[in-house]
């Protein structure tokens, strides 16, 4: 198995000078290809900060943070943008573009890679079919339910076959049934593509999909549990 993420001695600080406050303390973590990991922890424990650091959305300061074998500490903006293209994101809010149809939203993700227009369109439709929205391809987000929108977001995150998917509270805005469906869908598709998944969640109902659960509390990875 390849190592997707390798974090060593990572500290993170917010603010400057007297207001400088440490939010992450000496994080050591590695995620292997194909693993589904769930990160738990109370609000304010630094989960989202860690997630944004891994996704190249925030610049790490000290220690070592390697994503897909590239060091992110001290990386240039353009290197970071390249890494982002290999990561799929799923947000608590679906963040779909309202002026684009479901298919166009998914296609925006493929247009970062070298696909012909025809190929991109075909793959987008196939991906929407895979998430069970084959009959909603040309719908605008406002015409879709919350669960359907989140499924479009999953299709968008997975269509370009990323090496890793980062999901921040993907079920928070959904009822338990849709939440469950969405997570199982993510897990199934990711397994098919052999991609690593990291889910940040409070939702105890979905813990069973994880290969591994990690806890973050007060900025420290306090324990690692392997689920059976």
């Amino acid at each position, binding site marked *: 198995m390849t190592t997707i993420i390798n974090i060593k001695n990572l500290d993170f600080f917010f603010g400057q000078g007297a207001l400088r406050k440490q939010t992450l303390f000496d994080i050591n973590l590695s995620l292997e290809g194909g693993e589904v990991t769930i990160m738990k922890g109370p609000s304010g424990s630094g989960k*989202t900060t860690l*997630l*944004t650091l891994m*996704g190249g*959305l*925030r610049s790490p300061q000290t220690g070592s943070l390697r994503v897909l074998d590239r060091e992110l500490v001290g990386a240039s903006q*353009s290197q970071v*943008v*390249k890494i*982002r*293209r290999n990561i799929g*994101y799923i*947000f608590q*809010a679906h*963040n*779909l*573009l*309202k*002026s*684009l149809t479901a298919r*166009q939203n998914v*296609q*925006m*993700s493929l*247009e*970062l890679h070298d696909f012909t*227009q025809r190929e991109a369109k075909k793959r987008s439709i196939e991906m929407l079919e895979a998430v069970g929205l084959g009959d909603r391809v040309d719908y*605008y987000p406002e015409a879709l339910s919350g669960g359907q929108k989140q499924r479009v977001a999953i299709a*968008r995150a997975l269509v370009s076959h990323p090496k890793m998917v980062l999901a*921040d509270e993907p079920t928070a805005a959904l009822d338990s049934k849709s939440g469950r469906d969405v997570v199982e869908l993510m897990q199934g598709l990711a397994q098919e593509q052999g991609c690593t998944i990291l889910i940040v969640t409070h939702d105890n109902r979905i813990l069973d999909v994880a290969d591994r659960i990690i806890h973050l509390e007060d900025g420290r990875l306090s324990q690692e549990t392997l689920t059976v």
Partner: protein
Amino acid sequence: MKTPLAWLQLSHERIRLVIALAGIAFADILMFMQFGFRDALYESAVTLHRKIEGDIFLLSPDSTSLIAMDQFSQRRLYQARGIQGVAEIHPIYLDFAIWKNPITAEPRGIMVIGINPESDILDLNGFQENKDKIKLEDTVLFDSASRPEFGPIPELFEKEGRVTTEAGGRQLTVGGLVELGASFGADGNLISSDLNFLRLFGNRDRGLIDVGVIQLKDTANPEVVLAQIRQKLPADVLVFSKEEFVDFEMSYWQDSTAIGFIFTLGAGMGFIVGMVIVYQILYTDVANHLPEYATLKAMGYRNWYLLTVVFQEALILALLGYIPGYGISVILYTMTKSATSLPVIMSVSKAVTVLILTIVMCVGSGAVAIRKLSEADPADIF
């Protein structure tokens, strides 16, 4: 072709797009009307200049424009006749008389152009066939493109063959019609013989003229003759080529009056109105889509991509708003022209100027609106 995000973002909100385009069209119409009036003023001010058949013109140095002429001795004109290359010389008298509308008896100032009826110096519709008529005492030619306040002279003339009214305290007969056009300075024009002119303006001296027109032989080199005349005549007359004569009048209206400033200011207001409207649209677009734009950045789109989306939107708005703005302005120009007798015309240079201003207006607003884009930080949307 990639997904045309800029166009999709704009066209998704139809009503907002229509309002934006209406706003830009409105700004364009404002600019077109201001430029139209300004150019019409300048152009109308030199209509007569362009219609005088002459190569070199003499003016008093104290003259500032056709509506503020000073006289000079016509001896200067005769002096010029002796120069090699000069074919003919013609004096022109100019003054304003009070014309009484024959229907309503309403008085109004009209410009009287006094010329030698034997001469051939006006290139006006109707002048050739009618110029003999002004040899009759107190008979004039009426400019049919004068403002309607002078009375329905062309209609009356067509119906009755002659029109009489009072002007400058004399009974005048309209013996024919010519077509010249109103200017901001003169609402209407009469062509009169020099003799009738002096009858009408009893205080004017035959020897003091307003414009001296010099026609050159076909073989003469205008620049050489111009230089010779300048050298020979004393400094109490200005010597102009035809082009300089036109420029002299135009620069009076451009530089010595508030007109240019007023119309440019008016056009500037249109520009600012448009800029505010476009800024509002683009800013709202960016602000409403911040989480989505941040998501695009998280997916790996560069900041550059989002900048091009905003600027593409600006350009689309500029071009789509310009089309109705142009179309409506052409209609308004036609209406203005028939209502004011001023030469308000759509020219290529005006169309291009306003198009460029529209693009600058939209792209400029875009440049301000993109500052909002920096708030689309993907670290904040998680």
